[in-house]
């Protein structure tokens, strides 16, 4: 049960992140094109997305039963 709640919670966070990315598309493009120290924006956003989306995809495959081979 806990793993399904975790999967759902991460799924919602990922969905919100992607919705925000496209709602604020114009601002995202402006910040990316600015250059200079604004490089921190794409780097930071990529880290945030990968953290939540990476965990979500791991939980997703796990929930589907696609797991690494267990060593005995």
């Amino acid at each position, binding site marked *: 049960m806990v793993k399904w709640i975790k999967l759902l919670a991460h799924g919602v966070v990922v969905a919100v992140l992607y919705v925000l990315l496209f709602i604020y598309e114009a601002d995202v493009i402006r910040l990316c094109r600015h250059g200079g120290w604004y490089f921190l924006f794409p780097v930071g956003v990529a880290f945030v997305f990968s953290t939540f989306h*990476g965990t979500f995809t791991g939980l997703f495959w796990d929930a589907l039963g696609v797991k*690494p081979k267990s060593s005995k």
Partner: protein
Amino acid sequence: MDAGALNFIDLSTGNVAFLLFVGFVGGMVSGFIGSGGAFVLTPAMMSMGVPGIVAVASNICHKFPKALVGAIRRHKFGHVDLKVGLVLGVSAELGMLYGANVQQGIKARLGDAGSNLYVSVAFVVVLGIVGSWVMIDAWNLYRRGASAHDEEVTRLARWVHQVRWLGPRFYSEGARAHIPWLITVPIGLATGMLAATIAVGGFVGVPAMHYVLGLPSMMASATELVIAFVMGLGGTIKFGWSGYVDLRLAMIILAGSLFGIQLGAIGTTYVRPYMVKVVMGTIMMTVLVSRAFIVPVYLSELGWIGALDVDTARLLRQVSHWIMVAALVSGAAIVLGALLSGMRRHASEGQVA
């Protein structure tokens, strides 16, 4: 810092779906062999009208977080040699900067056709040598029915572990031996140079870690993800500083590729080591054929051979592109097939036990 002159394209639903799919397939291959996908993703974005430098920058920006997730995942499986990954990663960063300068020099002297010819010849030569070596080794392992423990350390790697006169050395847990810095750093430089030239540094890095440094092939492919992370982060900072990263494109590819990379990483736990080599060798040889088709087009554009008519040039470009797509798809199909059959076998073994 004049990215204002460049177009960041409007994204259609079709474009988004296409990028998600290519990202997923590329991610699956990356998770399995430690690299791959980049050579299809960049042209795929360019075919949608994305300027070349924005395509490269956005591709690199999706690569470093993807590599980080893959590296963490495979670190949990005990596949990563962090020390080797970081040493190679930092030297690969330097190699990438030097490789980019070489590229710019060729472009300034011979134009786009010269630059494209350089990239294609690099593909053909490197993949011809390394790809054949990997395929022969995979075939030998397959014939012997070797398991992970049977993977032999090459004679070259044994020499590298024993050599004392090459200066300071550090201990590699993956190789279970001391390795001279003077051997490791040039491998990193070559990996970075290749990454700057053909976008897939792992085609040198992974075989070199296995055959020269003596890491097991599973560890070599996983450690390559650490190198890809270090290089990708450096590349993103460089391109981001100039305002070339289209974050929308990068995050869409990331969405697909993170699903793929986890699947590829899980796949490695079910297969014998020769399968990693089979997939890598198959992709290398297919990409080699793809680039060989395009070489006459660039030679003709440079005026180094007779001019090709427009239809022939277009046909050669299309054949080259579709063979490259086939390389990625066939690699992904092998990974998926190996994963499914491995899981079934594991499940039935569990029932018997």
